[in-house]
């Protein structure tokens, strides 16, 4: 059984291919059931965003599994053939597939490293897979882990702390001048796209008063309605300056709309309350001579770009830390996956029961010293017979279910019933109650006993009594 991922992303495929493969939400269910209907595909999860289309699956056999999933992808769009797709696809299996999901969830593989949307998209995809029962024991565990890894990365690194868009950089700067944006007034001069975006960010961060002025007053009115602000006639914008804490300028004008004199006058009226001016226009609309004026802070498009570039570097530095976390977490999950292999489980079960039998038989034989060697052999044979019969059913079931879709679940259950090793992370140990057991049964049995284990001991104890 193998966990695999086959997919493509903004790193490997152009948008022309990605948009063809993208599965709209309305068709997710159908796509998932088609995926799971391929022979050999046990579990499936389909992650489709504008930057990536990925299929996570649990398959019986690696090579054929890859083939099936690729076939599935090629089938999603009529104009796509497998040959078309192959150069853009990546394939990962096992730890690498899991690591890939962890990296994607933590936004390490995103176009903008550290963006938070992807985690929500993964949660949605998982939700769909869960409701349509496309995912099972393995994928459920892996995806849940991926979500928790992403959260850990988010809280333990500063990967998502800084602004990586010009419009958001303006908000970040505003917050270094004004600790609380709610009482502040924004004056929007002109309505360039970036300025509108910045205004929207500012509103999202608490700004309530928005004044808008554009050359076309009608347009200004429309915008004012959209931002829940007030439109100001273009001729009046200079008199509005003094009232504005944040001035956002982006017009197509080829000269300075706001001069140093304007700002100086406004600052006098403001009695040196700080003023934050952002000029997103090219050519610039605010005279750079404003810069030296006390308590007026002017930033132009280059300043904002520089800030974004710096933040991007910071994020990459934090990403290196996050990569390390991903490696750690993959190792943890890898251990759990390994424990789900059938053969080692059967071996472990055998040696476990053998060990229990040995101990009980030795104990009873030590007390029955008068027995002849034949009788001793009989006692031993009896113990073996009972123990073997007890676990026989379990072993047969494990072998039979090894190839079925719920094989891993059986293995997991068997390991827990027979306490074959410390429980994997995420599974609380059973609450054992040893109060009714005689002390000798507890002594020397090590720690971490589970009820299942003591059940087995009970049986051998009964056995000993009857023999006597």
């Amino acid at each position, binding site marked *: 059984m193998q966990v695999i991922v086959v997919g493509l992303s903004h790193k490997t495929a152009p948008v022309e291919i990605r948009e063809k493969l993208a599965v709209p939400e309305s068709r997710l269910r159908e796509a998932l059931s088609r995926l799971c209907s391929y022979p050999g595909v046990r579990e499936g999860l389909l992650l489709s965003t504008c930057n990536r289309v990925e299929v996570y699956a649990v398959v019986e056999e690696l090579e054929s599994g890859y083939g099936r999933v690729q076939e599935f992808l090629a089938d999603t769009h009529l104009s796509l053939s497998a040959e078309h797709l192959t150069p853009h696809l990546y394939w990962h299996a096992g730890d690498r597939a899991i690591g890939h999901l962890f990296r994607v969830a933590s936004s390490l593989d995103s176009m903008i490293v550290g963006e938070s949307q992807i985690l929500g998209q993964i949660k949605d995809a998982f939700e769909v897979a869960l409701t349509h029962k496309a995912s099972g024991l393995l994928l459920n565990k892996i995806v849940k882990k991926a979500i928790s890894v992403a959260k850990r990365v988010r809280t333990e690194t500063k990967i998502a702390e800084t602004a990586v868009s010009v419009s958001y950089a303006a908000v970040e*700067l505003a*917050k*270094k*001048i*004004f*600790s*609380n944006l709610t009482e502040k007034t924004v004056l929007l001069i002109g309505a360039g796209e970036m300025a509108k975006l910045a205004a929207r960010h500012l509103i999202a961060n608490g700004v309530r008063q928005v004044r808008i002025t554009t050359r076309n007053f009608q347009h200004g009115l429309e915008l004012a309605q959209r931002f829940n602000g007030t439109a100001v006639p273009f001729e009046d914008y200079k008199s509005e300056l003094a009232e504005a804490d944040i001035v956002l300028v982006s017009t197509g004008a080829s000269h300075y709309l706001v001069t140093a004199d304007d700002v100086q006058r406004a600052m006098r009226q*403001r*009695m*040196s*309350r*700080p003023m934050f001016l952002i000029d997103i226009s090219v050519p610039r609309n605010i005279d750079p001579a404003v*810069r030296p004026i*006390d*308590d007026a*802070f002017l*930033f132009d498009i280059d*300043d904002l770009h*520089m*800030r974004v570039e*710096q933040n991007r570097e910071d994020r990459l530095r934090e990403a290196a830390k996050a990569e390390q976390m991903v490696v750690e977490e993959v190792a943890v999950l890898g251990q759990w996956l390994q424990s789900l292999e059938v053969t080692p489980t059967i071996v472990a079960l055998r040696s476990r029961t053998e060990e229990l039998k040995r101990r009980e038989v030795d104990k009873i034989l030590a007390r029955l010293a008068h027995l002849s060697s034949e009788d001793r052999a009989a006692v031993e044979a009896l113990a073996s017979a009972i123990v073997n019969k007890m676990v026989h059913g379990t072993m047969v079931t494990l072998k039979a279910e090894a190839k079925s879709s719920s094989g891993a679940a059986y293995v997991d259950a068997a390991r827990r019933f027979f306490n074959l090793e410390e429980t994997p992370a995420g599974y609380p140990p059973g609450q054992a109650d040893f109060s009714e057991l005689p002390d000798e049964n507890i002594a020397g049995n090590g720690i971490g006993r589970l009820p299942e284990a003591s059940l087995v001991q009970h049986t051998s104890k009964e056995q000993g009594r009857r023999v006597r």
Partner: protein
Amino acid sequence: MSSVFFMLTMGLYFVSTVCYLAYLLRRAETLSKVSLGITAVGFATHTVALVARMTDTAQVQLPTFHEALSFFSWMLILVFLAVEFRRQLHVLGSFIVPLALMSLVTAAAFRSDEASSLQPVFKTLWVHVTLSMLGTVGFAVAFVAGVMYLIQDGLLKSKRFNVLYAKLPALDYLDHLNQQSIVMGFPLLTLGIISGAFSAEIVRGTYVNWNPEQTWAMVTWGFYFAVLVGRLTIGWRAKRAAYLTIIGFAGVILTLIGVVLKSHGSVS
């Protein structure tokens, strides 16, 4: 016992200062927690040292320059811990703890068990010293806020978005802290000066005799009065307020030096 704890406090504040200064330049957030922990322990030992000293010298009943400075340092850290607790403003520690350490080191230089630079008077002197020192704490915090304001203002103006920029709070918060500190400090200093005048009247029969240190105190008082009025009426805030409070604090320091250096040995 007091001196043991006093030395211990000095050691702790020294380590904390080093940590806090390193915190200014490093990205490591844990450094601020370590520094805060050390400062808190230092504050505890300082409290013990102060209490022990009070009980030791109970029969002497006179405040010395050493005690005044030690108390100043203690109050400063108390204010810092309160602000840190409410606002999680770690970087404030990088400015206040060094200041507290400096005042403590100066206090150590004036530590003596018999002769004191302040001559014995009456209990009013305790009131005078306590109130003046509380006022001074307010001005010290205003000074620190002013320094932080000017640094952040400079970084924003020159567009140097470095580690320090990231750690310093918003300009208007610093301006607010500056204002609050003066609003609190000024009435305390006023009461301190009035109680000082009463002490002087009891000792010498005159409220004021305009010795250099008294003159300085009055000049400082007048200066802060102007700063406060200017802020509330004609908008002396932001950068200007930052500069003014830094100058004002320099005046306070000069007054304190005056207290120590004055040769005639009388009080206020």
